[in-house]
């Protein structure tokens, strides 16, 4: 027994030493290998993944010999990826560069908290000030310095409709909510569901409400919501909520079981005539063989003509990026004309730069690019630009409750409280 006891102790010690050796050698290996680039995003499938790979190819051509690690986390609108990224950043293990929506999601979460490096020098050396729209650079800037490089622009406020159903019923895309209700009544009388919605993930319903807010308050009033100038408890928001309640009576009853893409699919299946969604829906139509102006039509969401809700994916540089030089090269590719012309037609978005060759884009994207140049650009709340994430999650919750109980007074007071809690209003 005595011998066995000692042997066991010795064996335990040996295992412990071996474990320490393995661990330390692992650390040594990691530090030894250089020339890597880890890019974090939620572009896991379809056109998005193809677009990302196209940018990787350009990077490999320009900077050969660098191993690219494509760290993606699946999940619509990046909801899961953002959670993973937060634990990595908090734990001191940042990727070399990561996808982030420009605006508050970038500045409130990462810049103010001191996780990001300023890119003012990069913007200067690459001459980006003259090719990016000024409003867009402002969205990715904090105290005058840019902190990320936008690669694309999506439009949030688009009404999509089935051309066939509209032509058959001699309908025109509604430009205001009043027109919308007329069109919707006509469709309803014919037994066609007017508006498709799929809000299982909550943000889809919030997305629709954001467009209603913009349509009701106008660009200036809408911008004021995020700075405290427009009151959440005022008549404007009340009117928007009233409109929303009315709009919801034209929505498919099983909306809680669907997602944005199943809502888009309803147009293809002739189960609904319209849906309001960001222009990633155009990418979905394309992937199903539907063509712009032939199978589907598009217009600004009712009441939002002349404004453009910007949803921009950008890449930034974390302070503790393990491969800083490679990451800077990546940002150069992401901001280049060549990189954006390769990425965006596949992703189904327009270039964040204004000098891209439009011949590479389809009819919808051409029209979107034209609007992007002329329209008033406003930030999206649901997609992280207009308000801090703390507000965005509560906003989703409030809208989720409102969709069912339609209690406008409760929603307004909750919104006003959230605005205060997140220090957006005094």
């Amino acid at each position: 027994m005595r011998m066995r006891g000692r042997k066991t102790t010795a064996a335990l010690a040996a295992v412990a030493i071996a474990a320490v050796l393995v661990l330390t050698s692992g650390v040594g290996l990691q530090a030894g290998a250089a020339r890597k680039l880890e890019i974090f995003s939620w572009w896991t499938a379809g056109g998005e993944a193809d677009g990302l790979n196209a940018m990787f190819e350009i990077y490999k051509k320009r900077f050969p010999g660098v191993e690219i690690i494509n760290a993606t986390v699946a999940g619509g609108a990046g909801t899961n990826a953002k959670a993973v990224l937060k634990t990595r950043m908090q734990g001191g293990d940042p990727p070399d560069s990561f996808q982030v929506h420009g605006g508050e999601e970038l500045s409130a979460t990462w810049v103010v908290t001191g996780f990001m490096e300023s890119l003012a020098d990069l913007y200067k050396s690459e001459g980006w000030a003259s090719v990016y729209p000024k409003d867009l650079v402002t969205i990715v800037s904090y105290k005058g310095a840019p902190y990320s490089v936008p690669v694309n622009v999506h439009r949030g406020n688009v009404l999509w409709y089935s051309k066939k159903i509209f032509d058959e019923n001699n309908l025109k895309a509604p430009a205001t909510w009043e027109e919308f209700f007329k069109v919707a009544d006509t469709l309803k009388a014919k037994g066609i569901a007017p508006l498709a919605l799929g809000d299982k993930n909550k943000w889809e319903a919030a997305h629709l409400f954001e467009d209603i807010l913009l349509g009701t308050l106008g660009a200036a009033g809408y911008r004021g919501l995020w700075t405290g100038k427009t009151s959440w408890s005022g008549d404007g928001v009340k009117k928007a909520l009233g409109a929303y309640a009315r709009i919801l009576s034209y929505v498919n009853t099983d909306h809680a079981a669907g997602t944005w893409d199943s809502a888009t699919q309803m147009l293809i299946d002739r189960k609904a005539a319209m849906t309001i969604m960001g222009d990633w829906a155009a990418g979905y139509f394309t992937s199903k063989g539907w063509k712009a102006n032939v199978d589907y039509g598009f217009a600004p969401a009712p009441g939002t003509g002349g404004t453009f809700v910007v949803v921009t994916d950008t890449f930034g540089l974390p302070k503790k990026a393990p491969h800083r030089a490679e990451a800077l090269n990546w940002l150069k590719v992401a901001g280049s004309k060549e990189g954006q012309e390769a990425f965006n037609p596949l992703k189904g978005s327009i270039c964040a730069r204004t000098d891209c060759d439009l011949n590479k884009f389809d009819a919808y994207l051409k029209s979107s690019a034209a609007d992007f140049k002329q329209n008033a650009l406003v930030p999206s709340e649901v997609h992280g630009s207009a308000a801090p994430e703390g507000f965005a999650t509560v906003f989703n919750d409030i809208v989720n409750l409102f969709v069912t109980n339609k209690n406008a007074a409760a929603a307004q007071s909750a919104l006003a409280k959230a605005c205060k809690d997140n220090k957006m209003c005094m």
Partner: protein
Amino acid sequence: MPGQELLAPPRNSANVATTIAPGPARPSTLARPRIRRDSVLSALIVLPSVVAVGVFVYGFIGWTAYVALSGWNSFVPDLSFVGLRNFAELFQSPRFQIDLRNTVIFTVAFLAGCLGIGLLLAVLLDQRVRGEALFRNIYLFPMSISFIVSGTVWQWLLNPSTGVNLLLEAAGLGRLRSPWFTDPKIAIYSVVIAAVWQLSGFTMAMYLAGLRGIAEELREAARVDGASDWQMYRHIILPLLNPITLSAVIVLGHISLKIFDLVFAMTGSGPAFSTDVPGIFMFETTFRGNRFAEGAAIAIIMLLMVAVVVIPYLVWSTRAEAAE
């Protein structure tokens, strides 16, 4: 699967315990120094896991409790003490109130479903039917599937425009169509159906083991005394199964109080939070909203809810063990 450690056989019923009786007591003739050497060695072997559990379980519970009392509600760590403010905020939040109500409804319905169906299946299987092993495996099989997978499948099955509703219509039972989880009033029961499907087989297995542990003489004695089958089950077998029921309630209860994955994959928060549970609220508050202190407070409340169920059980089983 969490909570396996709670599956230790109940010990207070001699009849049930016969099949799984502990080994004979150690002879007390061991020399003193040997006992000490043994205990040093066993202490050494247990030490790593004690340290690991101490740090990674109790250490982090302590840390979470500490964060729950702090003002860390943005991405910048802020550990200033704010007392119970986070808890006060939570209990005022309409979403959290709905969550607590959902948890109670879900737990009660889920337990009733699992225990009822599990007992029924076990009693049926206990009739020495042919192909018993096959049925046992079929009933137990859902348990081996991850909650994420079953959640996804049940989401399709109970989607009002696909799945079960189409089946009902094809069978001419169109009147039984239901909006399932898109109707806030009944949404939570859709999730209960999925959870019961997944875990009633497990309850069946526990009950079957219990039934097999009941001595045949007891049944015979009851029959000799002229008891009907119903009376025998009602007055002899069911009372003998009480310890099994208790164990099942503990295991299933703590699963249901902290459920996350099944609901997250199947319905998410649901319309008007009708299927929202504290686990989902905690995840979104912490990792989407960056409100770390509030997220920690939700975690502490969940821990307390589970503790209310588990601690009395642990005390009871330790006492029973000591009594032996």
